[in-house]
C-alpha cells in the first residue's frame, strides 16, 4: 500500500514552550491510524499542523507524496478538499441548521442548491443513524452524542480521502462511545478513506485502530500495529494502556 500521510521531524513551539519535537508519522492508504497520548502530549497540535491550522516551525508534511509546506495557498486548498475533520466539541456552526452544516462545503465551494443540499444531508444523517427531522434542527437543540454524529456526517459529506478525528469519544457515555466508534469504522470503510484519530481512550483505540503511535512529550516513542501494542515492552506504552500510576509517566 502507498503512503498517504508522511510526516518527518515536525517541530512546533509556542514561545519558549516546545510542544512537538521531531514528530514522525507514516500512514498508509486506507489505514486507520490512532495517535495515543496523554493530556498535553501534543496530539491536537500535531493534527492541527497536518491539516494546516497551525504552521510548524520546521519539518516535512507530505500528503500523497506532495509537501504541503511548499504549496501555494491555492494548491493547499485543493489538498484541504481531500480532508474531513471531526472536532472534539463538534464545532458545528450555531447559526446554521443541521442540513446546512452537513452540506456546507458543497454549498460554498461547489454551489450546490438548497434541495440537493437537504437531500444529501438527509442521506448522510441516515448513514450516522439519525432521522430526517434532525436536518431542520439547530446545533443548540441537539445532545452531545447527536452533535458528534452530525459532525461526523459533515466530515464525510464531501467524500474525503482522509478523515481526521480529534478525540471523537470525549465526553460521551460508554454506549455512545461504542456507537461513534462503529460509525467511524463503517463510514471510513464505505469511503475507503485513510483515517487518523487522536485519543486517550484505550477501549476506543481497540475498536478503530489498525496501527498506533504513542506520543509522549512531543515525540513519537512507539509505533506499531494493534497486536504489537499488547506485546510491546515499552514501559511508557504499557503504563498508559493499563492506566497504571507506577511507571515512567508521572501525573502532572
Amino acid at each position, binding site marked *: 500500500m502507498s503512503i498517504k500521510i508522511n510526516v518527518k521531524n515536525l517541530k512546533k513551539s509556542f514561545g519558549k514552550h516546545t510542544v512537538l519535537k521531531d514528530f514522525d508519522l507514516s500512514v498508509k492508504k486506507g489505514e486507520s491510524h490512532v495517535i495515543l497520548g496523554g493530556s498535553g502530549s501534543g496530539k491536537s497540535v500535531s493534527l492541527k499542523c497536518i491539516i*494546516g*491550522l497551525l504552521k510548524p516551525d520546521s519539518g516535512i508534511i507530505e500528503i500523497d507524496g506532495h509537501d504541503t509546506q511548499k504549496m501555494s495557498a491555492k494548491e493547499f486548498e485543493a489538498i484541504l478538499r481531500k*480532508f474531513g475533520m471531526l472536532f472534539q*466539541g463538534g*464545532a458545528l456552526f*450555531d447559526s446554521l441548521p443541521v442540513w446546512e452544516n452537513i452540506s456546507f462545503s458543497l454549498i460554498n*465551494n461547489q454551489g450546490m442548491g438548497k434541495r440537493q443540499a437537504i437531500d444529501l444531508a438527509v442521506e448522510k444523517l441516515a448513514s450516522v443513524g439519525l432521522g430526517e427531522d434532525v436536518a431542520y434542527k439547530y446545533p443548540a437543540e441537539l445532545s452531545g452524542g447527536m452533535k458528534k454524529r452530525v459532525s461526523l456526517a459533515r466530515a464525510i459529506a464531501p467524500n474525503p480521502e482522509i478523515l481526521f478525528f480529534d478525540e471523537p469519544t470525549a465526553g460521551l457515555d460508554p454506549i455512545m462511545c461504542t456507537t461513534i466508534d462503529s460509525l467511524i469504522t463503517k463510514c471510513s470503510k464505505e469511503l475507503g478513506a485513510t483515517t487518523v484519530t487522536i485519543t486517550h481512550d484505550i477501549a476506543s483505540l481497540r475498536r478503530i485502530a489498525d496501527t498506533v503511535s504513542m506520543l509522549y512529550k512531543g515525540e513519537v516513542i512507539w509505533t506499531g500495529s494493534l497486536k504489537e501494542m499488547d506485546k510491546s515492552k515499552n514501559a511508557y506504552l504499557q503504563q498508559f494502556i493499563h492506566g497504571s500510576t507506577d511507571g515512567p509517566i508521572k501525573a502532572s
Partner: protein
Amino acid sequence: MVIHTLAAVGSHTIGFLSTFGRAFIFCFYATLACFHWPLKLKEFFRQLYQIGYLSLPVIGLTAIFSGMVLALQSYTGFSRFSAESAISSVVALSITRELGPVLGGLMVAGRVGAAMAAEIGTMRVSEQIDALVTLSTNPMRYLVAPRVLACTIALPLLVLCADAIGIFGGYAVAVYKLDFNSATYIDQTFQFLKQEDVVSGLIKACVFGYLIALMSCYQGYVSRGGAQGVGQATTRAVVLSSVLILIFNYILTAMLF
C-alpha cells in the same frame, strides 16, 4: 535592577509591536477579502439587516434627543447676545458634520461591535473557525468581509437617518417649546446647510463603520481561552472602536475642514 527594567520595557515594546503587526496584517487581508468576488451575499445581507435595520431605533433615539438638547442649549447661549435665529443652522451643522457620525458610530460600536466580537470570538474558541478552514472556506471571505462591507455601508445610511431625525428633534423643541416660527426655522435650516456638510458626515460614517467592523472582527478572531477570553475580546472591541472613532474624527475633520 537596570537590566530588569530594560528587559521589561523591551518585552512590552516587542509585545506591542507584534500585536500591532498582527492587527495590521489582519486588516490588510480583511480589506483584500472585501474585494474578492463573489461576495457571500447571504451573510452580507444578514449583516446589513443586523447592523443597519436593527440599529435604527437606538440611532434614532440618540439623534432625536441630541437634536433636542442641542436646540435648548444653543438657545440658552445665543439668547444672551440676541442670536436666537442662529439656532436652526447650529443644530443642522452640528448634527450633520459632527454629532450624527460620532454619536452614531459610538452607538453602533457599542451595539454591533460587541456582538461581532462575541460571535466571532465564540466561533474561535469553539473551533468553528478551524472547522471553516477544514471545509475549504476562507474565514476572511466568509466571516470578516461581509461584516466589514455591511458595516461600512450601513453606518452612512444610519447617519443619514440620524441627521434627519436630529434636525427634526431641534425643530420640535424650537417650534413647540421655544415658540419659533415653523416656516422660518425650516427656511433657515436649509439656507445654511450645504451639501458638503452632509457629505463630510457621511464620509466620516463610512470610515467609522469600516473601523468598527475591522476592530471587532479582529478582537473576536484572536480571542483565546473560553468565555473569559471572549468577554475580554468584546470589551476591547468596544473600547478600541470608540477610541479609534474619536481619533479618526479629529483626523477626518482636519482633512475635510
